[in-house]
């Protein structure tokens, strides 16, 4: 709270109390104005009204003040006896007590709840609102000064009026005293004359005594009269004359009395008759009358003056009271407006206070001694202490403040510089320590004494933890960056390199100073550098990542190829904020790649050589097969032909040749033909192996049907029943699959020779989750013990005489199936038929 703020509040308070004074003054005035009507009745009624008004407009304090002042005024002005604090009637004491009690009650009555409006907020924002409020305060002070002046003038006028009235009354009183005194002189004079006369006549001592007493009394009265009229010169002159007359008269009387005593009664009587006693007495009376007349004239003047003063006072009172009422109304309006403003401010304050309470920061106010006076909900939340617990303590003792510097030093800085900012450690109510960012501002009064302190603290434990985590992360990053075998570095968005890992310096043998920014160019090959610069500039301009291989010079002066990859690091808006680059030594890799290339080239060469060799071998094989096909058969045909010629031409003529010889010749022919078949089958097997594959969708069922038809035709004498499931398809080479099926079906026909009918089936089954084809027959079957040799070339399970064959058929079938990526196997039992299964790889 600044000095300025306090002045404003004091101004407020003053205005409110001035209003109380005004109200009581106005009430007094009004009551005085109603005096002729009310007399001494209802001395308090108007003061009740004043207290109620003050309570409503100015609040509790001023109302209590008005109560006190009203009590005094009523007591002094309106309780009998008036204008004094003397109380004669015990009922008046009771009535005073009642008045005081009721008014205190009215004052303490709480019209509405205005208690909670954020102490801290008020402290802060009253300062904020101080400037505008101050302006109206100046106006108000001027108004108050005017009002006070008017009140002073009114009071002095009233005072003068009252004084004048009192003076007039005093003068009337005085006049009556003078008249009394004059009357008294006159009567004592009469008594003295009468007593003197009696003595003169009688000579009786009694009369002489009476006369002496009367003279003494008259002297006393005359002295009183002289005293009373001391302020009136004319009267003093008359009294001087009176005294002179009186003394000559007294001499005469004394002479008369002496004459009577010495000469007797007659002389005295004669003297009494002779002298002019009577004349002298009349003269004395005439002077006294003149004094009376003067006094009566003065009385008249005084009475007139008193009446005029009364009327003036009444006017003054009326006008003054009217003015006071007017002032009261104006003041009331002004105060009402201020109160409205105040409410407005309080409303803002309350809103701001709510905002401050919404703040998660701890906002703490303290007085000049650092004793806490305000504690927001942020502080409650942050420290766990409630406002009630916190108020009256200092923050240091409540929160066990520790900082990097001793708290005393901290307070010293605050006292010296008026503010302190820094990080603190505070202990919460639950004993947990929290890191706090604190700001403390000291407030001073005009004399520079600290009167308050505002402390705003923020819990930065999370931030500290995050910072620590970040530091740790950075530490880990550095460790990682220095652990990897790559060189790596970071650059600003503009390509200025700010950091290299240790590996960079180890490899290049440079220092951080040499490398900073664009220093890296010194370890580049000057020939490669322009392209590197170009590509790097392009990446910097576009924000695209950079990938390039270029040589870097090592500390040994040798350039080694490095694969360099630079990734842009972007912020949330996608802007490049940093570049992160790595250089990976790929000399080893390149050596390896070169080696691989060399080996590949060698391998290719070798493969080409081998392929050529293989091709040559294949050509030879083909040539061989061709020769076999052509040249081997030709002599066989010759042997067969000439053997037959021998049989045809000579067997009939030669007895020997016709018997056993004929049998031998027939055997020559059959062996020859067997060799012919063998050659044909071998050629087919060879062809199957060499033939190029043309894979396509193949309808196996149709092939089987065609083969079956051919076989039926070839064996018209046999009853053959083929059961061929239609629609069996595979993906393969039609010609080769034709060969395979032909061989299998021919085999089936051959081995069902003893059966009538020979039943042969071609269908599909499932084997190990894949489709398999099967050719079954009801033929002679075989012993599974020999199944292993079944598919080898020249392998036979039956004798030639029983079932003719070369033993190459199944070998051929197996080769076809293998070339199709399939598998072939057989199941059989002697005399129970055989089943040949095969699979063909799916289309890729």
């Amino acid at each position, binding site marked *: 709270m600044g000095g300025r703020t306090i002045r404003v509040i004091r101004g407020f308070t003053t205005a409110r109390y001035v209003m109380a004074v005004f109200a009581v003054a106005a009430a007094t005035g009004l009551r005085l104005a109603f005096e002729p009507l009310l007399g001494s009745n209802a001395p308090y009624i108007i003061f009740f009204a004043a207290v109620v008004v003050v309570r409503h407009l100015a609040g509790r304090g001023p109302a209590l003040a008005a109560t006190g002042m009203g009590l005094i005024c009523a007591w002094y002005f309106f309780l009998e006896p008036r204008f004094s604090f003397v109380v004669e009637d015990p009922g008046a004491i009771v009535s005073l007590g009642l008045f005081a009690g009721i008014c205190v009650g009215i004052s303490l009555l709480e019209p509405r709840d205005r208690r909670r409006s954020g102490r801290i907020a008020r402290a802060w924002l009253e300062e904020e609102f101080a400037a505008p409020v101050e302006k109206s305060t100046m106006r108000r002070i001027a108004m108050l000064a005017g009002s006070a002046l008017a009140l002073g003038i009114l009071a002095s006028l009233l005072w003068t009026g009252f004084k004048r009235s009192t003076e007039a009354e005093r003068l009337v009183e005085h006049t009556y005293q003078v008249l009394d005194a004059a009357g008294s002189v006159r009567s004592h004079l009469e008594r003295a004359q009468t007593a003197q006369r009696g003595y003169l006549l009688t000579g009786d001592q009694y009369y002489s005594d009476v006369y002496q007493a009367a003279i003494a009394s008259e002297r006393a009265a005359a002295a009183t009269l002289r005293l009373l009229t001391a302020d009136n010169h004319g009267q003093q002159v008359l009294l001087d004359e009176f005294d002179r007359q009186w003394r000559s008269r007294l001499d005469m009387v004394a002479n008369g009395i002496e004459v009577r005593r010495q000469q007797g009664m007659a002389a005295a009587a004669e003297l009494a008759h002779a002298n002019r006693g009577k004349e002298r007495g009349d003269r004395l009376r005439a002077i006294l009358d003149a004094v009376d007349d003067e006094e009566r004239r003065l009385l008249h003047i005084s009475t007139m003056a008193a009446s005029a003063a009364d009327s003036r006072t009444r006017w003054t009172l009326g006008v003054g009271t009217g003015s006071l009422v007017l002032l009261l109304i104006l003041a009331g309006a002004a105060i009402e407006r201020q109160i409205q403003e105040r409410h407005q401010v309080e409303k803002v304050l309350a809103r701001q206070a709510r905002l401050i309470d919404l703040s998660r920061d701890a906002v703490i106010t303290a007085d000049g001694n650092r004793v806490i006076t305000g504690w927001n909900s942020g502080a409650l939340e942050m420290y766990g202490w409630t406002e009630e617990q916190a108020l009256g303590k200092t923050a240091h003792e409540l929160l066990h403040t520790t900082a990097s510097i001793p708290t005393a030093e901290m307070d010293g800085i605050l006292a010296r510089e008026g503010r302190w900012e820094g990080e603190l450690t505070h202990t919460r109510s639950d004993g947990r320590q929290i890191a706090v960012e604190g700001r403390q501002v000291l407030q001073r009064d005009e004399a520079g004494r600290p009167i308050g302190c505002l402390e705003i603290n923020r819990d930065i434990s999370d931030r500290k933890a995050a910072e620590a985590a970040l530091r740790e992360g950075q530490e880990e990053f550095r460790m990682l960056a220095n652990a990897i075998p790559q060189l790596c570095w970071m650059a600003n968005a503009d390509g200025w390199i700010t950091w290299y890992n240790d590996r960079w310096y180890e490899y290049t043998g440079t220092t951080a100073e040499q490398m900073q920014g664009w220093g890296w160019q010194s370890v580049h090959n000057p020939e490669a550098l322009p392209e590197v610069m170009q590509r790097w500039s392009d990446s910097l301009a576009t924000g695209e990542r950079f990938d390039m291989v270029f040589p870097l010079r090592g500390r040994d002066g040798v350039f080694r190829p490095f694969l360099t990859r630079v990734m842009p690091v972007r912020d949330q808006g996608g802007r490049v904020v940093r570049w992160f680059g790595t250089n990976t030594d790929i000399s080893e890799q390149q050596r390896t790649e070169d080696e691989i290339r060399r080996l590949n080239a060698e391998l290719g060469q070798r493969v080409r050589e081998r392929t050529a060799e293989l091709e040559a071998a294949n050509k030879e094989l083909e040539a061989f097969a*061709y020769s076999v*096909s*052509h040249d081997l058969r030709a002599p*066989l*045909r010759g042997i067969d032909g000439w053997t037959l010629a021998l049989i045809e031409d000579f067997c009939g003529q030669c007895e020997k040749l016709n018997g056993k010889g004929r049998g031998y010749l027939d055997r020559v022919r059959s062996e020859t033909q067997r*060799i012919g078949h063998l050659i044909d089958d071998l050629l087919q097997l060879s062809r199957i192996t060499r033939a190029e594959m043309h894979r396509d969708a193949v309808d196996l069922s149709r092939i089987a049907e065609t083969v079956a038809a051919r076989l039926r035709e070839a064996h018209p004498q046999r009853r053959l029943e083929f059961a061929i499931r239609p629609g069996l398809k595979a993906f393969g080479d039609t010609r080769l699959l034709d060969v395979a099926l032909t061989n299998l079906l021919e085999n089936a026909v051959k081995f069902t020779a003893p059966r009538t009918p020979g039943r042969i089936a071609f269908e599909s089954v499932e084997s190990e989750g894949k489709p398999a084809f099967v050719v079954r027959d009801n033929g002679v079957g075989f012993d599974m013990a020999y199944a292993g040799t079944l598919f080898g070339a020249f392998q036979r399970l039956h004798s030639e005489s029983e079932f003719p064959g070369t033993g190459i058929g199944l070998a051929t079938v197996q080769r076809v199936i293998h070339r199709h990526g399939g598998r072939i196997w057989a199941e059989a039992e002697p005399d129970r038929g055989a089943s040949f299964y095969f699979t063909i790889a799916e289309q890729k």
Partner: protein
Amino acid sequence: MNNQKTILLIEDNTSDVDLTRRALEKGRIGNQLVVARDGEEALDYLWGERAFAGRDVSELPAVTLLDLKLPKIPGLEVLRRIRTDARTRRLPVVILTSSGEEQDLAAGYDLGANSYIRKPVDFIQFTQAIGQLGLYWLVWNEPPPAVKQPSQTSAV
């Protein structure tokens, strides 16, 4: 049987020549069998050159039986030349060979062979084949018309 018509057998194997001749006889085909022992001789005969100079080349054989494996000029080359020369372009040529190789079959037909017979090892079958072949080409087959070529006469 038209005995003027000749059969040209181009074959180097004596045994096969004799067996062929025997088979023709067995088939009662008495036409003249001209045998050329190699491809060159065959072409000389057909075109009336060298040893056969002066032969009337307009007298084309009714059918030519061509073996593929021949000395000097192989059978398929012989066929190619026969077909490229205008005089022999239409000459019926039957390939008679031991080879059952697919590429031979394909090449033979591609070069314009009129038929392709694989000699069976079994001589009975061989005899049947030759007999039917002779009968077909000599009796039933209408020979192609002679090709008139002015250059031909001048060349002789």
